[in-house]
Every structure is written in structure tokens, then in C-alpha cells.
């Protein structure tokens, strides 16, 4: 058989860390937060899986998932509209709605019967709060060749401010085996910070989750992995590439801005393609009188004013005399004439009316919620 598909299926958790970015998830999930001018966060993980030949992916959603379902559709843009497998969105069962998923174990438990019916040998678990162009093929190869029970992905990074009370770091021995998993590490400086991506044998995942659920345990990392590090061979896999972690509003702003630094776009998009929902916008139009410096712009924008050090999503308009500096403008934001906006993050469909002056700071950008007019 032509080995175009790997022997793994994907499970993506769409709502993990929602609590860290309450403004951005007011009407959506972490997975559908717009990022990088034309993407949603889930595009990165989903495209990476599709690019590795993983064509059976379940997205587990907990709440606020309308925008995500609208974005994903039948999975066509990621080539995941398949007869077998493809994209599978798993909302909570109606009869379970009193009891929302509280941890990964709960969430996986809700798909246990589906997991049992699948044929792939391995399962990849991933959250969707990191924008990363990840080679899952390499990860699976490492997992298979090391003979580990579980392989977990980490990178060397400082613990983000927003995730101080919601992170896992790991200690590793000289063989790359995880010897300790620390919850809510607060040390300064670079740590072995978990990226919450795991490869595990499907059969053992079913077994572990079933066992944990029976005993009322909810957290995969804390209750399953951390307690069984002597029993389970958990290997660490270091990711050395470009990763944008979203852990609060400031990191959301900073990570969009980091894309403007030289080399960032190449690092994040230079590998396999990242797919997203197509909007069929026209190319971006720069009119007479526009000045644009050091910015990222998606298609469908119309620029008549000044844009500097900013990220503009699809369909934004910056009218005559308006100045936009150090801003992230999500799709269809309209900045009317003679506005002056600096350090502002606008959600979708925001309208800034003529002559307004809005100024945040680099540590505290002003945020304007979806569909609001200022």
C-alpha cells in the first residue's frame, strides 16, 4: 500500500484554556480565535494533521461552538471531507448537558465508543491554543521508534503570564523519559513547557481513560500521566520551531505583533501549507494617499489612510486620514476618516466612527468587542 496516510487519528480539544481569554471567547471557542490575519487558531493544528496524512480527526467542543462549526463546515478546506474518517465535530451529548466536560478525561470518555470503533493504531491529542506548523509525521516516527507508551510534546519557553496557574512543565532524564510532570509551575525563565500534544496507543488510551473515569478522575496530565510515570514509559519530544501560545489578551496581541518581526512569517508558514476557510475576497486595494509600513494584510482590505506595525484581517477598511498603528484589526473592521487608533485590538465587524482617538499601550491594548461601534 502506498503509505500516504499515517496510522494515527487526531483528537483536538477546542475549548481548553477558554478561561484565559474571556474577551476573545465571548462568542467563540479558543479554537476559532482569529489569528495571523486570515486564520483561526485551529487551522494550524488541523492543517498540520492533514499535511501529515491524518485524515480522521475529531474536534471535541464544549461550548460556544457555533463560530467553530461555521468555520470548519464539512472540513473541505483541510481536505477532510472523507468517506472514511474525515472531520468529526463532537459536541456534548444532550443528556450530559448538566455535566459539562470538566477535563480531558471526561471529554475523551464521551468519545470512547467512537474510539473503540476506529482502526488507527495511534491517537494524537492536541489543544488548539498554539499556532504552530507542526510535523506530526516526525512525532509519530519518534513515538514508534522509541517504543514509548506516551510521547508528549514540549518546547523550551518561559511560562506565559496568563498561564501561571494553568500549565504543565516536565523533568526529563538523559534518555528523554519524563520523570516528573509539574502542575502550575511558577519558576521564571525558560522551562520544559508542555504543548499539550500527545501520541498514545489507541487501545491504551481507551483503557486509561475508562479506568480514570470509573474512579472519578478528570485530568489526563495530572490524574493519569503524572501519577503513573513509573508505570508508563512517557517520552518527551522537543519542538524547536515557531510556536505562538495564546494565554491572555496581551499574549494574543504580542503574538500577532511577533509575526511582523523578520523571519516570523517564514518560520510559521514556510513549511507545509496552513489551510483556512475561503472567503473569496478580492485582492487588497491600496488607494491614492495610503501609507502602509511593516504590516500584514489579508485579502479584501481597502486602505486609504495610514497603517503601521499592524495586522489587518480580511475585509478591513482604513479610510482617508485615519491612522492605525500597532493594532490588530479582525475581519471587516472599519476605521472611518481621521481616526487615530494605536495599540487597539478590534474583534470582528467593529466600526470606529469618524475622528475617534483610541489609544492603548503595548502592555494593555484596548479591546473592542465583536460588532461594536465606537
Amino acid at each position, binding site marked *: 500500500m502506498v503509505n500516504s496516510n499515517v496510522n494515527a487519528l487526531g483528537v483536538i480539544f477546542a475549548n481548553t484554556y477558554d478561561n484565559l481569554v474571556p474577551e476573545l471567547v465571548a462568542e467563540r471557542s479558543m479554537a476559532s480565535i482569529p489569528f495571523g490575519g486570515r486564520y483561526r487558531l485551529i487551522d494550524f493544528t488541523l492543517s498540520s494533521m492533514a499535511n501529515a496524512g491524518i485524515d480522521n480527526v475529531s474536534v471535541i467542543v464544549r461550548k460556544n461552538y457555533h463560530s467553530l462549526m461555521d468555520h470548519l463546515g464539512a472540513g473541505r478546506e483541510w481536505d477532510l471531507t472523507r468517506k472514511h474518517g474525515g472531520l468529526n465535530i463532537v459536541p456534548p451529548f444532550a443528556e450530559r448537558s448538566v455535566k459539562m466536560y470538566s477535563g480531558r478525561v471526561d471529554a475523551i470518555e464521551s468519545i470512547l465508543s467512537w474510539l473503540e470503533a476506529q482502526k488507527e493504531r495511534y491517537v494524537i491529542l492536541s489543544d488548539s491554543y498554539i499556532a504552530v506548523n507542526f510535523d506530526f509525521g516526525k512525532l509519530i516516527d519518534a513515538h514508534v521508534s522509541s517504543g514509548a507508551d506516551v510521547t508528549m510534546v514540549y518546547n523550551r519557553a518561559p511560562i506565559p503570564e496568563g498561564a501561571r496557574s494553568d500549565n504543565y512543565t516536565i523533568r526529563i532524564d538523559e534518555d528523554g523519559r519524563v520523570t516528573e510532570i509539574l502542575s502550575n509551575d511558577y519558576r521564571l525563565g525558560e522551562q520544559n513547557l508542555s504543548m499539550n500534544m500527545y501520541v498514545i496507543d489507541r487501545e491504551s488510551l481507551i483503557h486509561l481513560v475508562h479506568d480514570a473515569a470509573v474512579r472519578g478522575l478528570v485530568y489526563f496530565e495530572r490524574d493519569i500521566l503524572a501519577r503513573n510515570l513509573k508505570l508508563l514509559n512517557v517520552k518527551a519530544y522537543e519542538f524547536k520551531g515557531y510556536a505562538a501560545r495564546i494565554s491572555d489578551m496581551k499574549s494574543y496581541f504580542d503574538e500577532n505583533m511577533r509575526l511582523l518581526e523578520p523571519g516570523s512569517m517564514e518560520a*510559521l508558514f514556510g513549511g507545509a501549507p496552513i489551510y483556512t476557510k475561503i472567503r473569496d475576497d478580492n485582492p487588497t486595494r*491600496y488607494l*491614492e494617499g*495610503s501609507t502602509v*509600513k511593516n504590516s*500584514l494584510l489579508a*485579502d479584501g482590505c481597502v486602505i486609504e489612510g495610514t497603517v503601521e506595525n499592524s495586522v489587518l484581517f480580511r475585509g478591513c477598511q482604513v479610510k482617508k486620514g485615519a491612522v492605525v498603528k500597532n493594532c490588530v484589526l479582525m475581519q471587516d473592521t472599519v476605521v472611518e476618516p481621521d481616526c487615530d487608533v494605536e495599540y487597539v485590538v478590534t474583534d470582528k465587524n467593529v466600526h470606529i466612527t469618524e475622528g475617534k482617538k483610541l489609544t492603548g499601550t503595548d502592555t494593555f491594548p484596548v479591546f473592542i468587542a465583536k460588532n461594536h461601534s465606537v
Partner: protein
Amino acid sequence: MAKEMIAMILAGGQGSRLYALTQKLAKPAVPFGGKYRIIDFPLSNCVNSDIDTVGILTQYQPLVLNEYIGNGQPWDLDRLHGGVHVLPPYQQASGSDWYKGTANAIYQNISFIDRYDPKYVIVLSGDQICKQDYSDFLRFHKEKDAEFSVAVMEVPWSEASRFGLMVTDENDKISEFQEKPKNPKSNLASMGIYIFNWDILKKYLTEDEADPNSENDFGKNVIPNLLRDGRRMYAYHFSGYWKDVGTISSLWQANMEVLDPSHSGINLFDENWKIYSRNSGQPCQRIGNDATIVNSMISEGCRVDGTVNNSILFPGVVVEKGATVEAAVVMGGTVIKAGASVKHCIVAENVMIEEGATVGAMPEGGLNIAEPGDVATVGSGVVVGKGATVGPKAMVSSDVKDGEEQW
């Protein structure tokens, strides 16, 4: 299940006057307007007019076009019953034949059309830039109880003799057809867009095929035959933007008109009449600190660090620091290196313009969209070497060595 109307798009044109641009692709596949191909216009018009069954008749260099159309999904034309079908000539029990003319192309696909049992067939041209509501055209056709209708545009009397002209009465009934006449009796030019009642079209195609002296062409044979028999023929007036981009200068012109601040060009910013295309899937465009962009249109995946003035950049074009692009149409994947000057020209896909090279030049009188004069052209995949010059009249389709000059 019968369809009310299906569309047949004539896309076999070689576009020989676009020479360097159509070496490897058919004219309908030529890129236009920053992210589109010409065929996106009739296809989008079809789907925006609720026509869900489209046959595309191809025979010249069909590879790019076939791949581009694929299953028709970008135009929402992937349908269970109907959808878009690419129809090349094929071998039949009675022998095989290239499409001999526009009418013969449809004739050879009678069985395709019959599968959908349509009441009407609209025949479209795959090489025109135009936004048109075919459902309004059909409404006219039905109101007039016509057997044949043709879309016409008023052209200046001084230019009328360049066109096929419809002479009509006050009810838009056609009484005469003049093909490029010396003494025009009308200024209503045929746009080459027809609606036929399918039973009538089938009858006349069969008759035309049986005539050994026929050129099997709609304008030369079928329409005159309909007139001869006194069929109910009407002219539907269209007054929007319409351009046949048959030459380099008309293709350049149609692109520049999109940028024209006085909106002489086709409006690509119309939410109510979107033009769909197969997407390149590249990340955002990156505009650098040293970039200067004036009155231009730039597509995804571009990287601009130089000067771009009155130009259209397709997906993935790179303009390095110190390079100047002016009044140019630069197609996807082309790289313009530092210090290069690219002016008043069309540069096809995946061209490499090396440092300090010069392509084209602004005319002495400056930019004049109406009377463009010379437009330099560089074919796809060409490398224009360091310091090389491609003159304003030149059309190059093979590499230009470092320092070499082509005029």
C-alpha cells in the same frame, strides 16, 4: 430531472495574440485582476444567475484549465445533478474530430445537453471580462417569446465596423445581421452571448453539420440561417462593463481599469456579485518598512519591500527593496529583485527578474490607460538576468541572459 437552462462556455480559444502568455495555457485560463482567471467571470456569472449546469468546451492546452476547474467547488458547481464539466473533443464510433468551429463544438456535445433536457441553452464566451446577470437575459428571452436572443452592446458608430452588428426594430427584434460591415446599419455589437431554445438550437446545429460548405460558426452560419428562416430573434441590451481581452494591450488595459480611481473598470469589490476563483491558500501579504504603495491592488502571499505604483500583484509576488514596479500586471509567484525596474508591462507567472534588470518603460506622455501604446510582456517561467533589459515593445518567452538587451 430537467433543467430550465444550462450554459455552454466556449473555451477553446488559443488566444494567439496573447502569444507569450498562452504558450502553455488556453486564453480562458489567463490570469486577471490580481487573483482571478478570465473563466472565473462566466463561471461566477452562471452561479450568481442560478445556473447550476455548465459545460466548458476546451481543446487548446487544456491542462491548466482542467486542473483549475477541477470538480468546480470554488464556484459552488460541484453538484450531484449538473455542476461543471470540462468537455474536450473525443473519439466517437464514427471517428474523432477537433471542434471545427463554435457551432460544431456544441454540436459534438448534443448528448451532454440532452442529459439535462433543458428548455434553454445559453452559449457563453470563455474569454470576456464581464459581470452579467443571465437570469435577467433569460427573463427577456421569455418575455419576447424568442427562439434566439443575443446580448448586444452599443458601440461608438466610428468603431461599429469592427463588430458583428445586429440591426433591430423598435421592439428589439432582429431583422439583419452584419458581420464587420463597411457601412454599418446599426451600432449594436454582438457580445457572442446567445440564448437559444434548445429544440431550435439542436435543429439548426444538425442542419449546419450536414452542410459541407459551412464553417460551423455561430456568427457566420447558424445566425444567418435563423434569419433566413424568419425565426423569432431578439437583441438584449447590455450596458455594463464588457471587455474581450484578446490582445496584450487590451488585457493590460482591463487590468489597469480596475485600478482607475474614476471606476472605468470592472468592479471586483461587489459583495452582491462576487467573482469566485480557486484560492492560492497563501498567508497574508507582508508589507515591509521600506515599501511605498500607491494606487495598487495586492494579493495574498505577496511580500513588498520596494515601490509599487498603479500595479496589480497576484498571489506570492515578491518585490524586493529598491525595486520599482509601475503600471505593471505581475502574475503569481514572480520575484522582482532589488534595483529592478518593471514598468508598463505584463509579467506572467513564476518569472524571476534579477537585480538591476529593466522590463518595459513608461511611455513618454506618462500613463494613459485609454491609449496604452507599447506594453512589454514576459512569459511564464522566464528568467530576466542581472542588468538585462526587456524593451517596451518586447515580448519574451525564453530566458534573457545577464546584461542582454531585447527590444
